[in-house]
């Protein structure tokens, strides 16, 4: 991490402001503490910077702003130290407990609240500022405690030596040991506990703490317990996190009654959503997938204004649909309320879907799509079917003639359906099975595909209720698309020989041919 050298220089500059008279009761304990608190202080800064770059992307900006806010807050803390009077050791013990709790809780709080707070940046910088101010109090306070016990030149020399040694230690073990072995959450909790231990050692090492020793010992034990509970809880948040299943850092994970949602981030600012371990999208190239899903159909039906989206609780297909001013009403049916809630509330994800799920044109229903289309009485111009891949017999039911025949009754005259249909390159028979099943259900099926780097070659089927022709020049495309143009859409219909049509069975409830094809073809890929 190139940012660390910047950090060290800033740190050294800050230290120059903190010269103060010397003197202390048991210098050895306190000087040892300096090394520990210096390590902890730098780690909190690194954790916050890393976390911000995972969650918010753009690591240079995130590190720079987090460090700036942190150092500025340390300055504020140093200045505030002058208002602390009375028994200084007692202040120091209080401070260490507080730093331990706030620093230890920082990473779990940021991860845990990421999905639930409206403005994540306020939380992030608020926490970084508070932590910076607390850490800024530490060295001035220690200098004042040690003042008079050591000669000034000794005091300054020793305190800052230990301070820098601690910082170096932190800077080295953070990327090499802590992140790969423990992860951010457990690292924060562990070093929070070290701060609390410093409080404990100071409490027991000095006679003057006797009057309040009992009360503070209880406090310290409680604080350690709280951090310990955090470590246990962190197991749950971060079970998948440590590079075993996902190559990036898990920034959000939730098990719902229907699936496991995992959101990961990396230092390139790339967000990925996994459902049950399968990649749902990458923020780097999802626009390709969603433009290919939406625009061929919308271009073909320029007057379409009532749309049904089945699946797609991330709101990304809806984002594309909302680019057409004539679209008046979009009904999104996604099984999992946790999914739509996440994409409606989280700031980063809302930035990704352009607040599409908050649009007044959009109506969200959290129910099973099969159950929905069986009881629905409305009719639609366009239906987008964006289900998970047919990897088990339950989802396989959503790709059968029985399902498509029911779905056909939900279309207006001249309406059409677009179905995402796995990869025609990897799962050639599975893809053409979907095409043939739509054709057997009375649709006029037009196969097409697009290249999405995260997924590879991806297949779709445009299925028209009445026989018709594909009109790649049907209507205008909205401005600002990054992938779909009339020429590109026209090209999507061409299948090279390695993905061209193969004979398949029709997928029915009583044969589940598609699930079998899908398993056979994706099996070697470990999906």
């Amino acid at each position, binding site marked *: 991490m190139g940012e660390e050298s910047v950090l060290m220089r800033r740190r050294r500059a800050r230290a120059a402001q903190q010269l103060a008279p010397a003197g202390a009761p048991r210098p050895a304990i306190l000087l040892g503490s300096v090394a520990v608190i210096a390590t902890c202080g730098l780690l909190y800064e690194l954790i916050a910077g890393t976390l911000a770059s995972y969650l918010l992307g753009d690591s240079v900006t995130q590190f720079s702003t987090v460090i700036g806010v942190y150092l500025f807050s340390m300055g504020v803390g140093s200045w505030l130290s002058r208002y602390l009077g009375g028994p200084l050791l007692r202040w120091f013990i209080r401070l260490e407990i507080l730093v331990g709790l706030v620093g230890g809780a920082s990473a779990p709080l940021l991860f845990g609240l990421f999905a639930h707070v409206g403005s994540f940046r306020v939380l992030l910088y608020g926490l970084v500022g508070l932590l910076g101010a607390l850490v800024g109090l530490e060295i001035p306070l220690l200098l004042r405690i040690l003042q008079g016990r050591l000669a000034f030149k000794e005091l300054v020399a020793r305190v800052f030596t230990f301070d820098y040694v601690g910082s170096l230690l932190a800077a080295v073990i953070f990327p090499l040991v802590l992140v790969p072995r423990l992860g951010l959450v457990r690292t924060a909790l562990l070093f929070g506990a070290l701060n609390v231990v410093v409080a404990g050692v100071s409490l027991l090492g000095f006679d003057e703490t006797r009057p309040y020793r009992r009360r503070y010992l209880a406090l310290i034990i409680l604080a350690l317990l709280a951090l310990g509970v955090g470590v246990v809880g962190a197991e749950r948040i971060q079970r998948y996190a440590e590079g075993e299943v996902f190559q990036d850092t898990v920034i959000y994970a939730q098990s719902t*009654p*229907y699936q496991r949602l995992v959101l990961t981030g990396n230092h390139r600012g790339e967000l990925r959503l996994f459902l049950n371990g399968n990649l749902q999208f990458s923020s780097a190239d999802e626009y390709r997938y969603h433009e290919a899903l939406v625009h061929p159909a919308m271009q073909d039906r320029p007057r379409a204004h009532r749309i049904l989206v089945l699946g797609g609780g991330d709101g990304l297909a809806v984002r594309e649909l909302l680019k057409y001013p004539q679209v008046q009403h979009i009904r999104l049916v996604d099984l999992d309320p946790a999914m739509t809630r996440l994409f409606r509330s989280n700031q980063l994800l809302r930035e990704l879907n352009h607040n599409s799920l908050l649009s007044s044109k959009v109506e969200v229903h959290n129910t099973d799509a099969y*159950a929905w289309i069986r009881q629905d009485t409305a009719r639609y111009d366009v239906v987008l079917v964006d289900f998970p891949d047919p990897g088990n*017999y*339950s989802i396989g039911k959503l790709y059968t003639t029985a399902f498509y025949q029911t779905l056909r009754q939900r279309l207006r005259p001249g309406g059409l359906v677009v179905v995402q249909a796995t990869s025609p390159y990897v799962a050639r028979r599975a893809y053409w099975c979907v095409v043939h099943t739509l054709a057997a259900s009375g649709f006029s099926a037009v196969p097409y595909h697009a290249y999405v780097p995260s997924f590879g070659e991806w297949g779709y089927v445009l299925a028209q209720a009445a026989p018709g022709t594909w009109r790649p020049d049907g209507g205008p495309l909205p401005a600002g698309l990054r992938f779909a143009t009339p020429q590109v859409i026209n090209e999507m219909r061409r299948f090279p020989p390695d993905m061209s049509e193969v004979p398949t069975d029709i997928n*029915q409830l009583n044969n589940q041919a598609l699930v079998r094809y899908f398993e056979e073809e994706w099996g070697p890929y470990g999906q």
Partner: protein
Amino acid sequence: MSIPRRQFIAQASAGLAGTLLAGLVSSVPGCTPAHSAVRGQLRGAGHALGHRLRDLRTIPTPSRTEEVDILIIGGGISGLAARRELQRLAPGRPTLLLELEADTGGNSASGHNARTAYPWGAHYLPIPDVRDTAVLAFLQEAGVLTGYGPAPARLPIYDETALCHDPAERLLLHGHWQAGLVPEVGVPPADRAELARFLAAMERLRHATGPDGRDLFALPLAWSSSDLATRQLDAETMADWLTRHGYHSEYLRWYLDYSYRDDFGVPAAQISAWAGLHYFAARKGRAHNAPPDAVLTWPQGNHFLANALRQQGGPGQVRANTLVFGLKAATDGRVEVLAFDNATQQSTRLLARQVVLATPWHVTKHLLPNPPLLAPLHAPWLVANLTVAAYPGGAGQPLCWDNVRYGSPALGYIDAEHQALRGFETDGPQSLTFYWALPTDAADPVAARRHALASTYDQWLTLVLTELDLMHPGLAAQVQAAELWVWGHGMVAPTPGYVWGPARQQAAQPQLGGRVHLAHTDLSGVSIFEEAFHQGIRAARAVLAEPRAS
């Protein structure tokens, strides 16, 4: 290999009535799952009300008289089919149907829990023979058959949602769940060859016709060829036939016993060879959109079909909770029927011009003044509907509609939510319907029944949970609720001589001067839907063939 097989059969059938539960449970030492937390109750086919037939003094004398044109006694498939046929052919003639239970359906009863309906008995219908136009017309009216495919075959197209969804069946064999119920995985080549030889022989029999041009084996069985050599197979047991034809494979014998217990309640040793072959050779269903071995099924089982029959039976009244306790010729040539309404605790004297008596034989023989001699064997059955907190997985094939353990004395379970139309798997509770045809001894069927009816909820539950734990270790602890139903009389078993012996033919004759027409699968010897359906049609047509009395 036949020796251990026979020992098993001997153990399973000989004298088990007394030691049934103890024997089955103690065969699994140290494996009695705790179940104090399981909710549920034990029910049974109205035997408390039904058994009042044995002591008529407890029933009040009729307080009023009612006149009816056609009275149907019994609301199982036969009675409902008779009612529907009468509505079709003579819509102007009012019918009244009396049913002992709270709902019609007979063995096709169903229940439901918070998540799903589930069957209490018969729960599927193999796609029928295309020549059985009466059943096809009924299914079309019920919306199950949606049309016909292109000429020349013009095969029926079935509603895909009613066809048993894939995957249909799995078998736990050698610790692994294999797809399909015919043992395959880890089965020695000699046994596989014997299984293949048997199934090929059955396939040939499916297409075989007799000198009279009729199929050797047909459904309804009355349509079968009268070829003497074939009918003589009714005299020997299926087990003897198998031995005579060199079928000794333990795997084959298990598969056949499983199949026969599933349809008849008893194994190959207790049914006639004619019935054992009929089981495999009479199914000739074909469909445009399904393979010949496809079955139709619904979450509520065949209660779906029973309700469709009832609905198609017109406006004629149906009275449930009603016990018929007397039946005799009235002086004016009509039939006097005495019925007790369990809700009002009142009895009524009904004067009917014609009667369809669609009750099982153990009821019929109490009602008729001079009942013909007929002694059908009925095994007692246990059906258990379990709510289980965890998914019943296991190595190999995932959860199917029908899930069976090789070598088990039980029949396995079906997933009651298998036909649900939804696209997700849930972690939520599963609803499993266990079937268990209890061993019964033809020499003393009463003992097995009496013991079955005397056993307590906890005893049954222990039995079911023990079996569940053998299929899915640890799952028994996840059972939240268990609703149990014990059928004292399950389905009729086609014992040797029953189907083509003289007693059955005579018992089917009209009674009381041609005014009482019997309809029940006990009169067929094979308790399956088509048989009951045609019993009803036959009785209805016989009613209409009689001159109308004043």
